[in-house]
């Protein structure tokens, strides 16, 4: 909502919200086109999705049209996208690395990257915090609760939890088959 901006005013949130809902409803209808609708007394698997999606599309159109007609509603102002992008990136990297690089390294990476989302990134403090958190999580979850999580990277042979049975005596740099079967999708 900056008055100093030149150009057309930002669309009202109602319009964008209505468009959002219509889009999602229409998107939901697309895979549902193949599913059987059934009869009114014997609804198939497609009946409920279609009804809900049609409702979403209807509500979206209503909201959008109402905002265009009555011109009320607050203007859309997109705040900084940086925190959202950075945090999503850090969680995604954590998710992808956890299986391969282990808990300790993933947590360190998560903390260091997430720190960039803040106003004043403080790398050294975050390094310490990350190390503390990683150590605490490894002790608490893997050793204390016995959760089957990889703590150290795949290529190494350290093991923090003697109760979790994984053959880690040989450094397997290129192994994938036995490890991949462990983590269930």
């Amino acid at each position, binding site marked *: 909502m900056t008055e100093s901006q030149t150009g057309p005013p930002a669309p009202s949130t109602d319009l964008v919200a209505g468009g*959002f809902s219509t889009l999602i409803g229409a998107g939901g209808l697309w895979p549902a086109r193949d599913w059987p609708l059934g009869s009114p007394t014997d609804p198939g698997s*497609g009946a409920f999705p279609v009804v809900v999606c049609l409702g*979403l599309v209807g509500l979206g159109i209503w909201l959008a049209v109402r905002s265009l007609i009555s011109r009320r509603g607050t203007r859309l102002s997109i705040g900084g996208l940086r925190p959202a992008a950075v945090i999503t990136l850090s969680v995604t990297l954590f998710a992808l690395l956890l299986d391969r690089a282990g808990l300790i390294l993933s947590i360190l990476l998560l903390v260091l990257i*997430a720190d960039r989302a*803040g106003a004043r990134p403080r790398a050294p403090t975050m390094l310490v*915090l990350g190390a503390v958190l990683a150590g605490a999580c490894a002790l608490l979850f893997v050793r204390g609760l016995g959760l089957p999580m990889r703590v150290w990277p795949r290529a190494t042979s350290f093991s923090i939890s003697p109760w979790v049975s994984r053959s880690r005596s040989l450094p397997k740099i290129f192994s994938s088959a036995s490890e991949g079967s462990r983590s269930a999708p």
Partner: protein
Amino acid sequence: MARKGRAGAALTIAALASLVAGIVTTAAIAGFGPPLASVALAFGPAEYIGLTVLGLAGAMVASKGSRIRAAMMVGFGLLLAMVGTDVSSGQERYTFGIDGLFDGIDFVPLTMGLFGIAEIIANLEETGGRGVETTPVGSLWPNRDEIRRSWPAALRGTAVGTLFGALPGGGATISSFAAYALEKRVARDPTRFGRGAPEGVAGPEAANNAGAQAGFIPMLALGIPPNAIMAMMIGAMTIHGITPGPRIIDLQPDLFWGLIVSMLAGNVMLVILNLPLIGLWVRLLKVPYAYMFPAILVFCCVGAYSLNNSVVDMLMMAGFGVFGHVPRELEFEPVPLLMGFVLGKMLEENLRRALLLFGGGSHGVRHPSHQRRASRRRGPAARSRVPARRSRTAGAGRSPRRRLNVEWRFSPSRSGLDPEGETAARSMKSGVRG
């Protein structure tokens, strides 16, 4: 309430409301267990539809913003609930070939993403990365006004929780949301909610505790577990040679009453453990947010992974973090989405079940809350599919043309077979009613 500096009081109210709920629910189990269980069992698909619609309508009413947006969020929640394999037909819906979505979206990554990560993102954006400013803690004990407002709310929450917790499929979550909606509805000034209304803490907390404990009612009285946790308890009890059921009070009174006393003891211990530690928890608020939010992120991520060791879960959580954040910019609220998600499966299943059972009007399954006529069928195995003519709701307005070649009918004894021709005789005698 934390923003008003009443964080300590809020925690105390929560602890005490839980205590009240726990004691009252224990008394209810002890005194009214079996009747409550039969009431819970009398709920058929039509009643469940009513309940879920009530819950969703309550979520829409309880929302702070515009109703249309709340309705949209409920719709999104319902859509998310449909991801996965359809129970009735086995059709894979919205899975896009991803194995991790075969069983549907898990509750925990959704909630953590929607409320945890989206909250972190929102906080970082709003305050430019500095984080929420911490207000002074204030006293730990609620003042007289707060107590006066809280205890009726706690009692109402207990009632809601006892009812919703005993229902199959109900539980603590639905109870607390329903209690919040109820509090907002009966309050004289609903705008106080979201700004520090103690009823908003006392009601849901009481409902939460009552809902969790009331799950024991059908389990102990009838041997039917209303949710997954109770199913695990039945499993554990069976391992130890105990069979919950209608006779448990007669056959094993020491077990039943021992359980009741243990519930009382547990609730008292809850308060004893909780209250002194509140000061400690509240001091956590003083930690600078820049150190807090990475820790929160770490615990969210590790927690989401630990459920199923699934990378898909964590990626979903990240996705819901974004998905929870973008709608916040558009003034959507996350609570109706959660309610839609939690109730979506129940609503769809029961809708289909009810339409199947009562839609044609010609399926005469005896149900305690509906008087239906016995069905007329074309043969032993065929199922009537005559939809349009027959009214969906009542047994009224039957066409006079009747088929009389009936051999198999649904008999009142619910076994499905009627070899004596009981129902045939009755319907021929009384005409319309069966």
